[in-house]
């Protein structure tokens, strides 16, 4: 809602400053979005010129050579092609050097051999209107040589408010003035000049209104005004309408818009000579019926849409836009002025379905005041008489002459205090409710409050309590700190697991990414089994954000590529977030996943340590360490059987539960993300992991007796897997073998082709005694036997 502040001041009779008004309105819930004098789009260099002579250039149709006074000593000669240019006009002049916002630059030129030193501008060229028939002619008071911007801007500051959807009353100036008066605790008595109407009741019978849809249209009124002269609006009317950001059209249209801005009640004027049937019918549209609106667009309708008809012929889309055929034109002499009330729901549906949003629909969809219908019509009629030469040819013809009563609400002042935590006196509460327009019948505990019909948002006691709070001032409600004692605390265990998994990742030196939950279909494809399992958005922002991610990796990889492209390729990254897929029944399943990505160098390369490229073993180590710190038990890795994004993927199990996969991401997938380096990753499905109980940490006593260490190096065929040998050693090692780890793997010139050497460090210890070599020797022998037999291994000495 945009308006000249002077108008608000005039209506409310306030003496507050502009800034004070802004603060008051803000603290009443009317958020000030802008305040100040508006600057138009006009380039700064454009000045006011005075046309001294205008002379047709011989042999041309329309070209005039003009001499202009632009304030300085030197006069400008400009060739102008507009039909309306003539001597003694004040006009906007763009001198040589002016640059328009569309890039047009004014240069010195010769037209038909005549020198032109600038351009006389039209409104369209200045960006002040969309089209114009000739140059813009300024009013006589404009100062020659002064800035055009100064000449055309009113110095009246404009205020723009954000009106929440619950406040239709504030879509009119009277409603805003009432609010401002409320803040000053002043009775609202608007300063309105309105002419006494001399009604001509004799003609009323001649025109009928038939409302066939009373639910959608509780009240419809018409009024006939004749002898209208369509012409320019007086300046004050132009200022009010343009201050509100609307275009001044002519006196008839401007008056209907002015009354709407003032009262919040939209009006519409039909050219009565275009109506043939003597009856206005308000009905629902028939299926596939159509209408052509003012803007010359044709819409196909459904019974959801409400129509105003001349007999059977649609002439307006009720409450949204008038029809093209019955529009007021410069030739109009007699009008039918519509003032009506439509159900907000009906207008909302039509407006949304057809995508038409007008000043009228914006008001109707919030719910206008049914009792303002007659008032607005009367007010407009008096203005038509005064400013458009109109005379009243009928009194108000209405479908519903009854006054509509406001909602009756039981209100307890004590409830206001308990809900707000305040102690506001009953007198103050009463005063506030009266100032917003309520009528009160008081009794001991509960009052009966009649809410005004212009406040359809006031339906319940709590709505009135909000009014009391708003007017009392939210700032005056003192904070109460007594409530801050802990309640019984429930722990959401899944939330705890998610936090622990983030912390576990940070602990092993990973940096956290946060990426969008949606990705391109292309990015999602490698991570889904079949296209049906992909969760698609019906209305995505763009193709790049069209489907919900099936894996966190899908949204992380673009970020990885971003950093590689910026020469920061050493990345150790994780993200915890939701992943989405459709199950076989086409239901969307949402789960949580952690994804870890390693690429670039595996160590912090620096002057002491050379960079080592990240390998499969690094990511596997991160995965093992990560799961150990999350679940305090060891992960079992097994060769991945299902096809996946990994090359040489290893599935990770805790017990029998498959938690995720670790490996190197396939280069063909990486190339989809424009990544050309090795990238290693693992993912863990935390929703699956959450089913697993975290083993409680229980202290394991360790042996007090000395340990014996032995190293064994085996020469085996290349394809023998180290973990299998380790497992065989563990099994053969009996209870005294407490630790086995691989400390060296070698293949190369020291061993024969096709062989590798794997060296194991073994640690023996007994919880009950000091082990002697003989104990260990016996076990070693057993180990050697097993390993040699099962793997054809040869002991290296």
């Amino acid at each position: 809602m945009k308006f000249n502040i002077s108008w608000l001041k005039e209506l409310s009779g306030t003496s507050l400053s502009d800034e004070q008004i802004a603060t008051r309105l803000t603290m009443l819930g009317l958020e000030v979005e802008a305040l100040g004098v508006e600057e138009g789009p006009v380039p700064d260099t454009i000045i006011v010129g005075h046309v001294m002579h205008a002379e047709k250039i011989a042999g041309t149709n329309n070209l005039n050579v003009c001499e202009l006074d632009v304030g300085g000593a030197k006069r400008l000669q400009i060739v102008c092609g507009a039909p309306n240019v003539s001597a003694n006009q004040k006009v906007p002049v763009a001198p040589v050097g002016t640059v328009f916002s569309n890039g047009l630059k004014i240069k010195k030129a010769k037209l038909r051999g005549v020198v032109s030193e600038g351009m006389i501008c039209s409104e369209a060229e200045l960006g002040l209107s969309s089209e114009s028939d000739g140059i813009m002619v300024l009013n006589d008071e404009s100062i020659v040589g002064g800035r055009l911007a100064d000449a055309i801007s009113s110095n009246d500051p404009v205020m723009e408010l954000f009106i929440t959807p619950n406040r239709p009353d504030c879509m009119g100036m009277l409603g805003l003035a009432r609010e401002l008066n409320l803040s000053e605790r002043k009775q609202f008595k608007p300063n309105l000049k309105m002419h006494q109407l001399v009604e001509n009741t004799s003609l009323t019978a001649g025109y009928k209104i038939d409302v066939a849809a009373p639910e959608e249209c509780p009240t419809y009124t018409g009024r006939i005004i004749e002898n209208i002269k369509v012409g320019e609006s007086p300046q004050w009317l132009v200022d009010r309408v343009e201050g509100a950001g609307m275009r001044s059209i002519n006196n008839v249209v401007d008056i209907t818009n002015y009354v709407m801005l003032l009262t919040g009640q939209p009006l519409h004027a039909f050219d009565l000579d275009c109506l043939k049937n003597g009856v206005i019918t308000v009905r629902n549209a028939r299926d596939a019926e159509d209408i052509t609106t003012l803007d010359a667009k044709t819409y196909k309708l459904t019974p959801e849409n409400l129509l105003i008809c001349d007999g059977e012929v649609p002439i307006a889309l009720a409450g949204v836009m008038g029809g093209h055929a019955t529009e007021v034109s410069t030739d109009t002499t007699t009008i039918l002025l519509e003032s009506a009330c439509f159900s907000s729901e009906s207008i909302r549906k039509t407006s949304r379905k057809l995508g038409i949003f007008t000043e009228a629909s914006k008001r109707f969809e919030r719910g206008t005041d049914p009792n303002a219908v007659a008032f607005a019509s009367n007010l407009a009629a008096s203005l038509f008489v005064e400013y458009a030469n109109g005379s009243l040819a009928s009194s108000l013809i209405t479908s519903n002459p009854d006054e509509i009563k406001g909602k009756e609400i039981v209100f307890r002042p004590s409830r206001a205090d308990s809900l707000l935590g305040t102690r506001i006196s009953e007198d103050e509460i009463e005063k506030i409710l009266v100032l917003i327009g309520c009528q009160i019948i008081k009794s001991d505990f509960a009052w009966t409050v009649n809410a005004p019909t212009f406040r359809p948002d006031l339906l319940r006691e709590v709505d009135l309590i909000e009014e009391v709070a708003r007017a009392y001032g939210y700032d005056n409600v003192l904070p109460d700190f007594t409530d801050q004692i802990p309640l019984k605390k429930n722990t959401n265990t899944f939330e705890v697991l998610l936090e622990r998994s983030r912390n576990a990742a940070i602990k092993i030196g990973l940096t956290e990414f946060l990426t969008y939950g949606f990705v391109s279909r292309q990015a999602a494809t490698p991570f889904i089994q079949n296209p049906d399992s992909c969760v698609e958005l019906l209305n995505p922002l763009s193709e790049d954000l069209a489907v919900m991610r099936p894996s966190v990796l899908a949204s992380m990889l673009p970020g990885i590529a971003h950093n590689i492209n910026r020469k920061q390729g050493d990345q150790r990254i994780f993200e915890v977030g939701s992943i989405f897929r459709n199950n076989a029944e086409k239901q969307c399943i949402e789960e949580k996943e952690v994804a870890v990505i390693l690429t670039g160098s595996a160590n912090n390369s620096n002057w002491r340590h050379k960079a080592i490229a990240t390998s499969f073993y690094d990511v596997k180590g991160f995965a093992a360490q990560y799961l150990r710190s999350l679940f305090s038990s060891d992960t079992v890795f097994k060769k991945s059987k299902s096809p996946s994004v990994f090359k040489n993927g290893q599935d990770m199990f805790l017990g029998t539960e498959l938690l995720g996969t670790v490996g190197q991401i396939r280069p063909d997938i990486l190339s989809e993300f424009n990544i050309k380096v090795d990238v290693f990753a693992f993912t863990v499905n935390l929703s699956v992991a959450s089913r697993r109980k975290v083993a409680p940490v229980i202290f394991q006593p360790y042996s007090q007796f000395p340990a014996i260490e032995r190293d064994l190096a085996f020469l085996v065929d290349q394809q023998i897997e180290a973990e299998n040998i380790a497992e065989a050693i563990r099994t053969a090692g009996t209870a005294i073998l407490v630790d086995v780890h691989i400390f060296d793997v070698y293949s190369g010139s020291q061993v024969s082709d096709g062989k590798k050497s794997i060296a194991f460090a073994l640690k023996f210890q007994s919880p009950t005694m000091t082990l002697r070599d003989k104990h260990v020797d016996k076990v070693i022998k057993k180990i050697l036997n097993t390993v040699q037999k099962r793997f054809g291994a040869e002991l290296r000495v």
Partner: protein
Amino acid sequence: MENSLKFGIDKALNLFHADADADAVKSAKDVEELRIKYVGKKGVLVDFFKQLAQASPEEKRQLGKAINSFKSIVNNRLSELKKMSGPSNEGGGELDETLPGVLPVVGREHPLMKIMNEIKSIFSEMGFSIEMGPEIETDFYNFEALNVPADHPSRDMQDTFYLPNNFLLRTHTSPVQIRTMQTSAPPIRIIAPGRCFRKDTPDATHSPMFYQVEGLVVDEGVSFAKLKGVLLAFMQKMFGEHTKIRFRPSFFPFTEPSAEYDVSCPFCAAKGCKVCKESGWLEISGAGMVDPAVFGFVDYDAERYTGYAFGMGIERIAMLKYQINDIRLFYENDLRFLNQF
């Protein structure tokens, strides 16, 4: 025989200790020299073994033990020294204290998560428990049960992403309020942190995905004054003890009375600066008393119980706290950004 070898071993051990403790041992090269001298192929140890070969079986057992002990002491000490010495390319081994230390690898939390955890821990101290809900929601939980009927103009305030079968991406974490109230009776004292989605084209201040924390308290005697108390206490912990808050009337379908709340600008002590656009106040989010209509959807007695709810955007708070001017930076994941927090 036995004694002279035993004596030789003891003496060698003493010599070794003296050598190893000497200041001259600095670089890996120095350590390697020691290794060659004592346990290398032509070192002292090999000599001992040669001598041992001539001993009687009885002596061998005793001396073998001594030699093994010598060997393990020397090797242990050498590996200790090796760990302490730099690589051989340090050039001469003079310590240059001006060379940079070798930084350990550390993990880093995303700034939004850092703020989120700060918020969670403040509310935890104030007795709130943490609840979660799905990101894919139904119309019922995201709108209807929050008193936002279909076609209501207030839906225009949030442009929604839709999925097949009438599912949608939640536009706020308020559905968690409904889910919690459906399954538990008052008193309720929760916060619901999480991801939300609105169909906004990304620019400096809009993101189609963002994080939010919502709070809900329902009990007997819960008032607007208590809502102000909780948010003031929270903001003072978040932005400093002198922080003030300002409530302005507003409209949300799920609260009545409704408010927008601002905090006093912590950067200029509310005097007016660039961050607060000279107003002294920073707009945070919305709050209010739970609308009785919402209680109707979860079968709470709206006469007996009252409640308050509030929301806050994590990006907004992080942007204020770290003076970040473009919301897109949070989701670009540039390491130069992430490494600053």
